[in-house]
């Protein structure tokens, strides 16, 4: 690799788009922190709702965006050596954590860069080579994309920023329920009982969750099951019947007894608009406030 190529790769690795390209997994590539006292797993809700900056415990966000409970478990299996004995392992539960989602080859690519091959779902050697090639030399592997995105990022930094439009939480909440969740999971009525397929998914995922809790306890870690806050406009759309069918039944099925279950979905301390980037995900301010409160609740 010549010097120019190395320099370009260094620039690329420092950009935000490159971190987003890998769904924030570069944090695992150079992990040197031991004795971590709290980590959270979880899908995008885990990624956006936890921030450990300025917290009294050494924490790390182990969510890498879109990931199922099985992926959560695999990350935990690969990285628990970095945790302090007695560390909190926050297992983030989202409204649809119990349903199996489809994962594309692209969304699976990141796992090849930081997980042991034995723990990669649907392992494919060609995909592994592809992922490691991009990781080792991003500029050589995808020069067009690197130039385009890096220039775009620099341009955004130089040009005056437009003020982001204010989020219409009510409208966005409807979109999340109708266009993200109901369409993705093929659900027509949120309050109806689970279909046979979804019920089977729920049982399978409950076994995974049970296994995660057992795994933590066996290794002297403290598992905690947490539902993070959502904006009130979204929580209003998730009825008691829905929560019972999709969330609480799931957690009961998993028999997670040694792990406390804390539900912050309707917590009035986290309902301010300023805490959210959209009705489902918190922003940095919200995530920091929530994470601090969670740590207080866990350590009192």
């Amino acid at each position, binding site marked *: 690799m010549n010097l120019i190529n190395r320099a370009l790769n260094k620039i690329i690795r420092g950009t935000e788009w490159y971190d987003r390209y890998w769904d924030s997994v570069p944090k695992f590539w150079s992990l040197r922190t031991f004795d971590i006292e709290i980590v959270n797993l979880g899908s995008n809700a885990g990624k956006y709702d936890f921030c450990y900056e300025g917290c009294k415990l050494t924490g790390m966000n182990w969510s890498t965006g879109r990931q199922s409970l099985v992926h959560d478990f695999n990350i935990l299996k690969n990285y628990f*050596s970095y945790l302090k004995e007695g560390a909190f392992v926050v297992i983030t539960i989202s409204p649809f954590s119990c349903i199996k989602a489809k994962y594309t080859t692209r969304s699976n690519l990141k796992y090849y860069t930081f997980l042991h091959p034995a723990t990669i779902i649907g392992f494919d050697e060609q995909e592994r080579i592809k992922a490691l090639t991009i990781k080792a030399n991003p500029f050589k592997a995808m020069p067009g994309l690197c130039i385009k995105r890096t220039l775009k990022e620099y341009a955004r930094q130089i040009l005056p920023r437009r003020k982001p439009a204010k989020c219409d939480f009510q409208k966005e909440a409807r979109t999340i329920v109708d266009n993200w969740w109901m369409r993705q999971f093929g659900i027509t009525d949120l309050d109806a009982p689970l279909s046979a397929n979804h019920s089977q998914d729920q049982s399978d995922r409950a076994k995974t969750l049970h296994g995660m809790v057992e795994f933590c306890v066996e290794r002297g870690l403290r598992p905690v099951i947490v539902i993070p806050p959502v904006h009130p406009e979204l929580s209003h759309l998730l009825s008691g019947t829905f929560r019972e069918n999709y969330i609480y039944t799931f957690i009961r099925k998993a028999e997670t007894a040694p792990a406390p279950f804390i539900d912050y979905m309707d917590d009035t301390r986290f309902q301010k608009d300023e805490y959210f980037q959209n009705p489902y995900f918190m922003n940095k301010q919200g995530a920091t406030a929530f994470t601090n409160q969670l740590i207080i609740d866990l350590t009192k």
Partner: protein
Amino acid sequence: MKVENSLRQLQTDYLDALLMHWPYPDFFQEIWHEMEAVYNEGLVRSIGVCNCRQRHFEKLRQTCAILPMINQFETSPINSKPELAEYCRQNDIQVMIYSPLMNLRLQSRPQYHDLLQHLAGKYSKTKAQIVLRFDVQRGMIPIPKSTHRERLESNIGIFDFTLSEEEMRQLLACNENRQYMPESRSCPGL
């Protein structure tokens, strides 16, 4: 198990020790049973494991006839694993240390390197020799690897001095649970 192949290649009729590299979560008890059989055949003089924690031994204890005689893992003053070391001592499991000098490459607290520097000066030894001597005085067997003659000599030259109890305590107090090779990355879920 192809122990016979190893014996042939090494041109010997027995091995001093046969170790299981990783306690693979789904197989380690099965592998151990095979190792017990090899031991009972007299092909090896001792059998052991690597990277095992107390819970692994307790699992083995439920089903095995022979408890491992050796446990090889990474430990150093900055990663002293006191409970595991004590467990091994109480159960007559000899501790072997792999990568015993890699801790010197880690960015640890300056107090650790200052202490090593001080002890190295006091005993006219290198920092590496102080670490190896510390291991030996803990009753453990460090296995440093080197292909350089002078380093091999240096690694052996640790038997002409003794760290005091206070110095051992000071070194043990440097523990920060930092290790060169976090086990779960090589053997997920171990």
